[in-house]
């Protein structure tokens, strides 16, 4: 469904250039869920943004449904690929009602039955019609993220790019949003690319994953390797051990340049 080959992204020019993504290659099958894991600055979000068309200059090949993407994204691409961002407070227009927020993509793509589709999208993310004419500031963080998911879903995409979709949420709300995303993937055979720093979230959500560091993929693996704690790269093993909480001995053994 999605294929990324030899993706390179550089920001800035000449001596100030930052090589943010280096030769990243991966494939995601239809209906599969792929995780990109890494710490800040690893380039994981940049990969996602390059796929979404939010990065200007990149080289390599990105294909969605067999169609190679250029610098300009077609309307078909924009209908098939949608993105959900980390911060549900920043991602929704503060002076648009939920109704306007959900109708905008329908208007852009000239899709009819807008009222029905808005109601259906709300129902699918577990919100009833009372929310339809509210503004974002009248919603909780979890409700806002549900609206962001509903906005992505309303035009029936095939691929959803998820950039840390629950890291701004409380854990009980995170569980609800993750369950929602899992159910939608099952029901609609959606393909996910999930960027997260949280190994437990990736373990829960993904079939395969890649661990990134300094713009490069250090290791790709099936989720079973992560769950059983048997990644092969030392950096991944360090991330895995660090995820289990504070341990003075562990900290003493941390190495900066694995």
């Amino acid at each position, binding site marked *: 469904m999605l294929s990324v080959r030899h993706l390179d992204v550089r920001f800035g020019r000449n001596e100030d250039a930052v090589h943010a993504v280096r030769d990243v290659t991966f494939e995601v099958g239809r209906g599969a869920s792929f995780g990109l894991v890494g710490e800040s600055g690893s380039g994981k979000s940049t990969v996602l943004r390059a796929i979404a068309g939010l990065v200007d200059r990149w080289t390599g090949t990105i294909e969605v449904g067999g169609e190679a993407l250029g610098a300009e994204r077609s309307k078909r691409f924009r209908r098939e690929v949608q993105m959900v961002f980390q911060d549900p407070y920043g991602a929704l227009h503060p002076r648009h009602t939920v109704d306007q927020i959900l109708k905008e993509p329908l208007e852009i793509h000239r899709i009819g039955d807008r009222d029905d589709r808005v109601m259906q999208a709300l129902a699918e993310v577990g919100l009833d019609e009372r929310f339809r004419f509210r503004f974002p500031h009248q919603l909780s963080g979890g409700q806002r993220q549900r609206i962001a998911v509903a906005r992505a879903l309303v035009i029936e995409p095939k691929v959803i790019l998820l950039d840390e979709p629950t890291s701004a949420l409380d854990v009980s709300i995170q569980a609800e949003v993750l369950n929602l995303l*899992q159910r939608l993937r099952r029901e609609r055979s959606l393909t996910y690319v999930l960027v997260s720093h949280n190994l437990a979230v990736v373990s829960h959500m993904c079939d395969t994953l890649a661990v990134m560091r300094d713009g490069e993929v250090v290791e790709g693996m099936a989720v079973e390797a992560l769950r059983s704690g048997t990644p092969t790269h030392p950096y991944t093993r360090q991330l895995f051990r660090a995820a*289990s909480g504070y341990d003075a001995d562990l900290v003493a053994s941390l190495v900066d340049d694995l």
Partner: protein
Amino acid sequence: MSDAALLEIEDLSVTYRTAKGPVEAVRGVSFTLGREKLGIVGESGSGKSQTGRAILGLTDGNGTVHAKTFRFAGIDLRHASERTMRSIRGNRISMILQDPRYSLNPVMPVGRQIAEAFLVHHRTSQRDARQRALNMLEAVRIRDPERVYRAYPHELSGGMGQRVMIAMMMIPEPDLIIADEPTSALDVTVSLQVLAILDRLVTERGTGLVFISHDLELVASFCDRVLIMYAGRIVESCAARDLAEAKHPYTRGLLNSLPKIDRPVAVLPTLDRDPSWAG
């Protein structure tokens, strides 16, 4: 002194006046703190940060603080003058906040900010304060203290910035540190390194620590004791290492709702909030 409680709080409440009527952010919170690492966990709006701010007298102007007992090192905080509070704040109780980018002065080199934290509370020379600041930067494991001393906050990474914050908060040698989500903005390995520094300083100097966090697993592994807050109240307290066996349905619900790396489940259990928890 070492056996006496550093902080004694009984029936603390923080109430805010709002357009829609009074909001009780903290209700009937009681605990004592010795020279230990006490975690306060809870979700947004549970009152954990408001409890920390009340101890420092930093409750916003439209809020009022009430308590039957509210004592720090024998000083009654209920009747403390603003002057007394100023001599306590920073000097005897200091606070580490989540994001060093917002807590440091962006237009002053960080070394001078650390030295200033010492000078405000001690009569000494600039040179002495500078030397102490450099020593403190070394104590928080900064490799090149002279360079970092001259650096501006924007020139530091998140982890470095937070170490600078810890240096600044530790330099007056406070008796109590309130750390409100001190590592939530940091990567996991950096976060653990910063906590190790805090752990060592707190243990060596016998400082009390109130560690406010939403991260149950981190608190369970880092602190000695944990209070779990919900809707402004403490619903449960236990030894940190026993948190996994917590009894209260809210605590259990939070723990269960966390995805686990090694134990996949089809559907994560979600929290059914029982109105009785809010009491």
